[in-house]
């Protein structure tokens, strides 16, 4: 049997997490370096996966299959399609930057503060999240996926609740209470979603008799497994609800702003750029494959919710006073785009959505991490506390601007490609919704530029006058992301080539084809 | 007993016996529940059990009847009585309910349950009785023995094991392991001196009192009862009888007479204070 590449990719960070946690407290720096090395090694493995993956080959590749709980037909089935491969690469790519950006976020607080911050724990938890996310991308067994989909919450909970920003306008106590509130909110939302999904998973088992995604999908395709319409719809809703909470889809979004606001910037990136992607990914892989009819049945409602999310998130982002909250609401708007693309049921829409997941990950990481550096300098998250930073720290301001431009999906940067694909994909089938969604790009420009204007331009505030510019470590974090943004914006072909076949498959799962252009239809 | 006892319908004799003793049994049961003092409950329960023994006999369960008398009324009830002694014979606990609504709920459940049970028995079609005639043909005890040692032998063995376990358990529960060497007289004396209270031995009960009984607190010179004089157990049970009031009256009279005779005011005995706090 060949080398279990996928298992290795997931296991490496898991082992790394344990090792990092085991580092004695005195050797804090060693733990950091260990975490960084492990994450980089994982990146290498992920790249190998990407290379070994043959876009024109079978749907699921590098598969591994072992029986696990024989009595319930639960198997340890791994396999990646194009979408999963790309997203694994994204995850593995972002984690090193997150680790590097959070280098000092978990250092013990200056004396006098009561909070104890286990540095090793911080990095170990990040690696644990990485492992779980990767394996939930890889798994082709519904039960296996479910387990890690849920288990992810535990390390995230501690990351959110345990490590917040150093400074807080209302002091350490208020900070910790708000942190725990955010963490519990995050946990409850996702647990509720997960439990409903568990019911659906069991229901699926009752109907299908096993948990294997490939088998069930195949049986659905060739009609050997027939579901009653109502059954299919209920199961679909069960799955979709969990993913919609995770994604998050309006109106299930309110946990995200709190979580992102209270956690440190790297963790916020971890939430929105990595963990939430599992939700959208799962919509694409599970909802559409397992319940094609129900998906089509639910499409109108979902599309409307997604569009509401786009506009709503953007409008709220405009109204925020807190930088991180603003980014959070922007992300909500972007997730609206992703979901829109998935359920537009066109190849442009779905490829665009997948691409969007990648690009949003990178762009949000860039913007949020720079924002984190900014906040760590001034010790405040309030936009009003900044002004004129551009004059003091031009590089920081420049990177911040580029991150912002990526967020408003400026052509030439990666997000533009995906956003336009999603819009086109939606427009070809639902013109009205497409047009409404297009308003999102104006609002995106509004909140981004307002943020930039208020923080970076104008007369220099005395508090920021001594602000240092980006340090080497921070530059190392941001520069590659920006390069990647530009590269994928100019030449997204490498990604699309991997994604397109998988999307074609999904399209055939739901028995949908792109609508023909009017001119050709006329002929 | 005559086989007709076990016949389909019972003799008037048995009926008479049933009605009389049954009534007594019920009364006994009720008093078991409602008697204030545990001793009385125990006794009335014993009575009920004896009556039940009689009923067993009447139903042709001769062995059980005897066993009932020997084991229950003989052994178990005595055990009960011992415990009652330990806890305090005269201790009467109030029947006043402390948990809100408990009593009403209890009665409701009881009545409802009883009614249901009776109804169940009533509409169960229990018309035909074989009687234990041929079952007891060659002796009730032999019959039981045959069953016990063949059909129910495993259950029997297990109950044996159960009994032994119970005995051991009882010992474990009640036995208190002595963790340190018992103090010698000398050590105790030294400790007393070191602590500086009751250097002399504790005062005897009943002193200055009419009743020379162990449950009467000795009175201090000023007539107030001294806790120290009564044994701890009695104190815990609240069984200390207080005679201080009349004793005080007598004392006052006595003092008057004393003053009349030699003109001086009585001095407070010095050791009283300290003995007071010692009792605390």
């Amino acid at each position: 049997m060949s080398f279990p590449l996928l298992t290795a990719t997931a296991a490496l960070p898991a082992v790394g997490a344990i090792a990092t946690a085991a580092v004695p407290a005195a050797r804090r720096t060693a733990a950091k370096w260990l975490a960084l090395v492990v994450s980089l090694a994982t990146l290498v493995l992920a790249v190998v996966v990407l290379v070994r993956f043959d876009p024109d080959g079978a749907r699921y590749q590098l598969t591994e299959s072992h029986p696990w709980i024989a009595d319930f037909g639960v198997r340890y089935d791994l396999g990646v399609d194009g979408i999963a491969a790309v997203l694994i690469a994204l995850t593995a790519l972002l984690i090193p930057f997150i680790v590097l950006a959070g280098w000092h976020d978990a250092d013990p607080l200056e004396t006098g503060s009561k909070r104890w911050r286990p540095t090793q724990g911080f990095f170990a938890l990040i690696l644990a999240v990485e492992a779980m996310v990767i394996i939930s991308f890889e798994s082709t067994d519904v039960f296996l996926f479910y387990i890690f989909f849920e288990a992810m919450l535990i390390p995230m909970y501690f990351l959110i609740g345990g490590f917040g920003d150093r400074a807080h306008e209302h002091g350490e106590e208020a900070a910790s209470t708000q942190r725990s509130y955010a963490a519990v909110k995050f946990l409850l939302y996702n647990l509720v979603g997960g439990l409903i999904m568990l019911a659906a998973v069991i229901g699926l088992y009752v109907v299908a008799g096993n948990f294997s995604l490939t088998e069930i999908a195949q049986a659905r395709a060739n009609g050997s497994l027939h579901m009653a319409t109502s059954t299919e719809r209920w199961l679909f809703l069960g799955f979709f609800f969990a993913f919609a909470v995770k994604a998050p889809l309006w109106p299930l979004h309110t946990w995200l702003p709190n979580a992102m606001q209270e956690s440190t910037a790297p963790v916020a990136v971890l939430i929105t750029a990595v963990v939430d992607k599992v939700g959208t990914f799962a919509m694409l892989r599970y909802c559409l494959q397992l319940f094609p009819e129900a998906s089509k049945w639910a499409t109108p409602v979902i599309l409307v919710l997604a569009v509401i999310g786009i506009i709503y998130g953007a409008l709220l982002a405009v109204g925020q006073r807190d930088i991180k909250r603003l980014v959070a609401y922007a992300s909500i708007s972007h997730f609206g785009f992703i979901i829109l693309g998935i359920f537009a049921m066109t190849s442009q829409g779905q490829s665009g959505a997948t691409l969007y997941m990648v690009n949003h990950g990178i762009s949000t990481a860039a913007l949020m991490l720079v924002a984190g550096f900014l906040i760590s300098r001034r010790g405040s998250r309030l936009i009003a506390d900044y002004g004129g930073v551009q004059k003091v720290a031009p590089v920081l301001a420049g990177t911040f601007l580029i991150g912002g431009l990526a967020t408003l999906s400026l052509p030439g940067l990666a997000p533009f490609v995906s956003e336009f694909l999603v819009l086109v994909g939606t427009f070809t089938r639902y013109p009205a919704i497409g047009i409404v969604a297009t308003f999102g790009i104006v609002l995106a420009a509004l909140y981004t530029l307002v943020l930039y204007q208020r923080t970076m331009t104008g007369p220099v505030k005395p508090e920021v006058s001594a602000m240092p510019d980006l340090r080497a470590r921070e530059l190392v974090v941001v520069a590659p992301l920006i390069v990647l943004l530009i590269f994928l914006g100019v030449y997204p072909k490498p990604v699309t080539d991997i994604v397109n076949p998988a999307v074609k498959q999904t399209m055939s799962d739901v028995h949908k084809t792109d609508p023909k252009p009017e001119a050709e239809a006329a002929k | 007993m005559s086989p007709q006892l076990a016949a389909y319908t019972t003799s008037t004799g048995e009926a008479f016996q049933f009605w009389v003793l049954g009534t007594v049994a019920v009364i006994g049961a009720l008093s078991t529940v409602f008697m204030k003092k545990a001793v009385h409950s125990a006794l009335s329960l014993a009575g009920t059990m004896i009556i039940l023994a009689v009923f067993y006999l009447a139903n042709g369960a001769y062995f059980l009847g005897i066993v009932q008398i020997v084991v229950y009324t003989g052994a178990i009830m005595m055990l009960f009585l011992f415990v009652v002694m330990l806890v305090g014979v005269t201790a009467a606990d109030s029947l006043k309910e402390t948990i809100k609504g408990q009593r009403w709920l209890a009665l409701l459940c009881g009545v409802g349950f009883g009614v249901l049970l009776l109804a169940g028995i009533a509409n169960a079609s229990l018309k035909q009785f074989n009687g234990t005639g041929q079952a007891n043909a060659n002796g009730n005890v032999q019959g039981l023995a045959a069953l016990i040692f063949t059909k129910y032998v495993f259950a029997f063995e297990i109950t044996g094991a159960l009994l032994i376990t119970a005995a051991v358990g009882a010992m474990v529960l009640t036995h208190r392991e002595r963790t340190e060497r018992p103090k010698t007289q000398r050590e105790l004396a030294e400790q007393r001196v070191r602590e500086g209270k009751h250097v002399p031995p504790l005062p005897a009960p009943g002193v200055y009192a009419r009743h020379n009984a162990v449950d009467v607190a000795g009175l201090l010179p000023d007539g107030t009862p001294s806790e120290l004089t009564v044994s701890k157990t009695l104190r815990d049970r609240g069984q200390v009888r207080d005679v201080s009031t009349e004793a005080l009256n007598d004392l006052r009279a006595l003092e008057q007479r004393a003053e009349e005779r030699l003109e001086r005011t009585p001095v407070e005995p010095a050791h009283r204070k300290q003995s007071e706090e010692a009792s605390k």
Partner: protein
Amino acid sequence: MNAENLIALLIAAPLLGAAVLLLGGRRLDGVGHWIGTLLSTASFVFGVILFADLLGRNAEHRTLTQHLWTWISVGSFQADVTFRLDQLSMTFVLLITGVGSLIHVYSIGYMEHDERRRRFFGYLNLFLAAMLLLVLADNYLLLYVGWEGVGLASYLLIGFWQHKPSAATAAKKAFLVNRVGDMGLSIAIMLMFTTFGTFAFGPVFSHVGDASEGKLTAIGLMLLLAACGKSAQVPLQSWLGDAMEGPTPVSALIHAATMVTAGVYLIVRSGDVFNAAPDAQLVVTVVGAVTLLFGAIVGCAKDDIKKALAGSTMSQIGYMVLAAGLGPIGYVFAIMHLVTHGFFKAGLFLGAGSVMHGMNDEVDMRKYGGLRKYMPVTFITFGLGYLAIIGFPGLSGFFSKDKIIEAAFAKGGTEGWILGACALLGAAITAFYMTRVMLMTFFGEERWRNQPTRSPQAPSAEPAAEHHGEHAEPHPHESPKVMTIPMIVLAVGSVFGGAFFSIGDRFLHWLEPVTGHSEGDSPLSAATVTGATMVCLVIGVGIAYVQYGRRPVPAVAPRGSLLTRAARRDLLQDDFNHVVLVRGGEHLTRSLVYVDHTLVDGVVNGTAAGFGGLSGRLRKLQNGYARSYAVSMFGGAALLVAATLLMRAV
């Protein structure tokens, strides 16, 4: 070597410049401006080479395409990075790189004292690259990239002096208004994709016949929306005035010569679509006519020289859009006016910049006066530009504008008359306000004497101000050579450009293969129109002279008539935006934030609280008394008995 391969170099050169200058860091501060200028000139040289190459070919084969790589390809959605160089884009390439290079040179002098000059040149190069991408793109999506690229460059350059809140705000406003237009463009592209299955120029134009007119009209209107945003046409014109916050070379290059004309390019480029959608065309002409009057009126009222010129830009572009809306009759003249306008308006702005440079960055014309003695070169170049724009016979403006007016009449029918009348009126007003600018700046008594000037926006870091120092009485002086030479060149262009183009219809023949051309049936003879134009011209100049030449200009603006005051406030358009959009938006967002917190979040928290209370009550049942547990147990037993009985009863 093969000419196609040069096309990419056109863009590559300034792009490289931008990259080098923006990433280069401080060590390039010394040479940054030279690198920038060099690379933009290189791009111009490539342009000239290509131009020669095109001239070498015969008219049919003057379209070169260069395919670089496939950009996006998903299903039937194919977007390539392909460049298309034909006569139309060639014209723009020359205009952009030419004027661009000149303005680079000019900026060397103008930005001399700005410590961030390197970055300024980086932005300028970035703009050139984006603008060239815009005009060279072979499909609408690639054009869209350039389209937003120039938007970004304009954002960066308008807000170049970011420490000025006014500048930052103006930049943001410009970008946002443009974004609205971009929305139109993207919707147009989507419509094309759904209609034709592609958005590359060639296929779209060849399949126009297959599409329904409704769709085409929709596409046309969306394209027009985009054009309005970029070219500051009504109703999206409000940003152009504020954009004057940027350094003057920027105003000259971006907000006069090149970027703002992109809308015209878009319309002319999409000519085939518009030709098939007459309704859309009509709307285009209306927008053009309205804007040309709007801009002209605003231009009359402004005392800020740059804002006055901005108004005139608006109005001139109105002319172009009007012409472009006329269809084949007007395309060529739209472009021609665009080019000549590029020359003289850039010249005018540079002149204005030079005046400000000499006047402590004073922009209020009421504080100028009699400057001709002090800055003769500026005076002459500015004057030539002035004559050109008002359409003085023989100068470039004369030819191009005259042609447009003719074409307007030639549209025929009532709208022909109306449009023509608007164009004529516009010509008169143009003459008026330009004369006003001229007189207030270079003639009359010297109002800047014995009154310290302090520029309204207090541009503390604006280059000249720093070494002149505030509050000192200005001593006007001629600008250095590096600034005057570009002005002279542009002046030459604005003098002879028109004649060169229109004598023998050179320009017409050059562009016709791309845009097509048709002579409309003009109700009036060309001579009549020219005559009428001349009359309007004279009237305008006359009134202006009476108002500002004869009697002295008050140093503080008089209250003025209602119209004047409205015009000073951009005809209240900004106030409208502020009240309706800004205020409304603020209220909307605030209420939404509230809703999100109370309603959406409240529902969840409410549920949580409800469960908490419920469990709090249930908890009381666990009172810890064995007996009460026993009661429930006993009750349960009773229920079981009851159940069994019921079962047997049933």
